[in-house]
Each structure stands twice: as structure tokens, then as C-alpha cells.
């Protein structure tokens, strides 16, 4: 499918959606009139009539949502799939080598749990899996959405379930250019201790950089390895890149790989089906999403292979 066909599909979706909305409004007006006439003439109670109309509104909304999903559901799924093929995949292929892209697949909860860097919460979703090479550095990444379930009491003492997002962003895994034996975690201080399983396993390491200690918590099995990986230059780079991102970031060094979790509350490589297809704007957004990957390789100099081999 090309861009023009994608635009045609979007027009078709919008048209069908509009038709559904008009039918929905007409259905609501008609049913409300019927209720108004019947209830008011029978019971002469205006409160009861208004209540019936409100219930009617809820019913109409539910019916319309069902009808829309039947009429447009398949088209919307096709749109998202084709959008990613037309715009995202081609952009990824321009920047990376050996690209693999699964728009609907991501990291499994078990895999993220096995890394142990972040609590996977009560609800876990992951998509937009990408793997490939940039400057000969292998990487994989996916979007991640983690939620915790809470019970909250309202003013009347009624309990209700609330889903709180604890992580919405990306997990990226890069080949690291230094060999190390033990695990190290560097987490922005915005991450709560409860969401960091490592804080219970390892002791906190204080680096010689006071500003770094104020911005990040470092947990490590071995203090020496923490100092080996976190050189003064590397700490500066971490501080710079985190400042530029303006959100909480976590760096985990596990099994000679660098795992980076960026909690930027963004769902990458997405486009709203009802939003106009502006190729330039879309391309800018995708480039920005791709740059998040390439910036880590460039700014942390992960392609520096000085330490890659040992005698």
C-alpha cells in the first residue's frame, strides 16, 4: 500500500465514522422524544423522564461504539498496520542495518522480569519491537506500558480500582563496549525505590561526582565495576543525555549489555487515524523517535571499540 492508498483508507474510515455519528445522534434524538412523550404523559414526572433519557444516552453510546467497531474496526487495524509499513519501516531501513520490525509485538513480561531492572506491575504491554544494527552496534528496543492496580476510597467510603501508570516509554538494549562480570544499575532519582527491584538486592554506590549522586542512584554488586563502567566522562554523558531528555531514565549494565529504560510517557511510532496525514510532520515525528535510539549510541560513544577485546 502506498501513501495515496493510505490516505484513501483514512478518508473511508472518517466518512464511515461520520455516518455512524449522524445515525447515533438521530437514534438518540428519536428515542429521547419517544421516552419524553411516553414517560411524561404516563407518569408526569420530569425527573424520571430525564433519568430515562440519560440511560438512553448511555445505551446509544454503547450501541454506536459496537456498530463503529463492526463497520470500521478492520479498516482501522489495516490503517495502523499499513501506516507502520509505509512510514515507519522505510524510515528504520534508511537508518539501521539488519532491521527487524514487529509493530504489534514487544518484549515479554518474563524477559523484562528476567533483567530485573524494573517492576513489571499488574498490567504489562509492549509493542513496536525493533532490532537491528547502528554503527555496527546491535540493539533491540520496544515500547513498554506498565501499570499498577490500586484500590482507592472515595468520599462516601466506596472502594474503586484505579490503574496507575508507573512506566510508559521505551526499553532499549545495546551491545556494550566494555566487559564486566557483575550487574550495575543507574536510575534517575525520580524512580521510586519500590519500582527498582535492585535497590533491595544491592547496596548503593556513591560516586565521587556529587551532582551525579544527587541526580542518580547507583546500585551495584561490585563497587569496582561501578567505577570501571562509570568513568567521569561517562557520568558527564549520562547527565547530559538525561538533561536533554527531561524525563526519568534508567541505565542497567547486565551481561555485557546496556539496558536503557526511558520513561518519557510517549508511545512511539504512532499516528492517530483521525489526524490528517501530513507527510512532513509524520516524518519529523518518526525521525525524532528514531533519534532516541541513535542518540544513545552517538552520545555515549557505544561504537568506541577500544575495550571490546581482551587478551
Amino acid at each position, binding site marked *: 500500500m502506498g501513501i495515496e492508498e493510505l490516505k484513501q483508507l483514512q478518508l473511508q474510515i472518517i466518512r464511515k465514522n461520520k455516518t455512524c455519528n449522524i445515525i447515533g445522534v438521530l437514534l438518540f434524538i428519536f428515542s429521547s422524544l419517544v421516552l419524553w412523550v411516553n414517560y411524561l404523559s404516563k407518569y408526569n414526572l420530569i425527573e424520571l423522564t430525564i433519568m430515562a433519557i440519560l440511560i438512553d444516552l448511555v445505551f446509544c453510546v454503547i450501541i454506536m461504539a459496537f456498530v463503529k467497531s463492526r463497520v470500521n474496526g478492520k479498516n482501522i487495524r489495516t490503517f495502523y498496520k499499513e501506516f507502520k509499513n509505509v512510514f515507519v519501516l522505510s524510515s528504520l531501513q534508511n537508518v539501521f542495518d539488519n532491521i527487524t520490525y514487529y509493530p504489534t509485538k514487544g518484549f515479554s513480561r518474563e524477559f523484562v522480569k528476567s533483567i530485573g531492572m524494573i517492576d513489571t506491575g499488574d498490567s504489562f504491554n509492549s509493542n513496536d519491537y525493533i532490532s537491528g544494527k547502528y554503527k555496527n552496534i546491535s540493539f533491540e528496543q520496544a515500547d513498554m506500558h506498565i501499570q499498577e492496580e490500586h484500590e482507592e476510597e472515595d468520599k462516601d467510603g466506596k472502594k474503586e480500582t484505579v490503574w496507575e501508570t508507573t512506566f510508559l516509554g521505551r526499553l532499549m538494549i545495546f551491545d556494550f563496549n566494555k566487559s564486566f562480570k557483575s550487574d550495575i544499575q543507574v536510575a534517575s532519582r525520580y524512580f521510586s525505590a519500590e519500582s527498582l527491584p535492585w535497590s533491595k538486592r544491592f547496596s548503593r554506590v556513591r560516586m565521587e561526582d556529587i551532582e551525579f549522586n544527587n541526580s542518580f542512584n547507583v546500585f551495584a554488586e561490585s563497587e569496582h565495576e561501578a567505577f570501571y563502567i562509570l568513568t567521569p566522562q561517562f557520568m558527564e554523558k549520562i547527565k547530559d543525555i538525561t538533561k536533554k531528555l527531561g524525563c526519568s531514565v534508567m541505565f542497567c549494565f547486565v551481561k555485557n549489555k546496556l539496558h536503557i529504560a526511558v520513561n518519557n510517557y510517549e508511545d512511539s511510532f504512532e499516528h492517530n487515524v483521525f489526524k490528517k496525514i501530513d507527510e512532513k510532520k509524520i516524518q519529523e515525528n518518526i525521525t525524532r523517535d528514531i533519534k532516541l535510539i541513535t542518540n544513545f549510541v552517538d552520545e555515549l560513544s557505544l561504537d568506541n571499540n577500544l575495550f571490546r577485546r581482551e*587478551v
Partner: protein
Amino acid sequence: MSLTIILIIASIIILIILGWYISVSNKLNRAVVKIDESLSGIDVALTKRYDVLTKMIDVVKAYTKHEKETLFEVIKLRKDMSIQERNNVNHVMDENFRKINVVAENYPELKSSENYKTLQQSIADVEEHLQASRRLYNSNVSIFNQLLVSFPTSSIAKSKGLTKKDFFEADEIKKEDVKINL
């Protein structure tokens, strides 16, 4: 106030002072242990650096055997060296490494040999480990020395006969070691 109450208050004060003394004393002991641990890290890194440099010198000598011998300084690693002695050993290694680089500049075939390249990568990694050990050691020494000068910890440290520790110096030559062009 009865004598019993005075005795109870005095006992509580003594217990608080004793508890505080023990906790500060343990804190100082832990700081000393951490310094000793990080010092052993420096020794490991120095030994590794010595081994790789020795291998490099052997490779250099093999390439320059028909010319007059380059004089590398003799390095003697001992157990229980003082920080000053460790610093001196490290300076000698810096000097030898500088000489190796000078010789390599005159022998392009040596510089391009796989063996030499591998050893250069190795020395860069060893250097990073030495820097890490040095920074960890100096960080621990800094914390310990700060404890020694802050009152009232200083008085307990004095009673235990603890004195300020020396830092393991960094110098510019070592920092340059990692900037090897391969």
C-alpha cells in the same frame, strides 16, 4: 532528686555515649576495611598493567633486536608496598609505556602487527581498571579523611591511633594511555 534517679540518668547517659562510641568506632573500622579492599584493587590493576607492559616490551624487543637496545626501567612489584611506592611503580610503568610508544612510532610494522594491536587494546582496558581502582580508593580515602577531621569523630579516631591516608595520585600520562589510535 533521689540517688536512684541520678544513677539511672547517669547510666542512660553512659549507655548513650557507649553506643555512640561503638557506632562511630565501627564506622571508622568499616572505612578502613573499604580502603584496604580498594587498595587491593589497585594492586590487582598494577599487576595486570605490569604483565601487559612486560608482554609489550617483549614484542618491542623482538622487533628491535638488531638495533641498540631500548632501555626500559626495571619494575619491582612487592607485597605491602606503601602508597608512595605504588605511585612510584606506576610512574615507572608510565615511563616504560611512553618509551614503547616512541619505539612503535619508528617501526610501522610493529605498530600494525596484530599482537601489538591486541596488547594496546589490553593496556587500555587495564588502564581503565586501574583508573577505577584509583578513583574508588581515593573516594574511600576522602570519606575517611573527612571523618578524621570532623569533631567529635576525630577524637575517637585519635584514641584509636588512626591517621590520614595518602591519595593514590593520577597523572596526565596515564590519562593519555587510553587515547590510543588504532
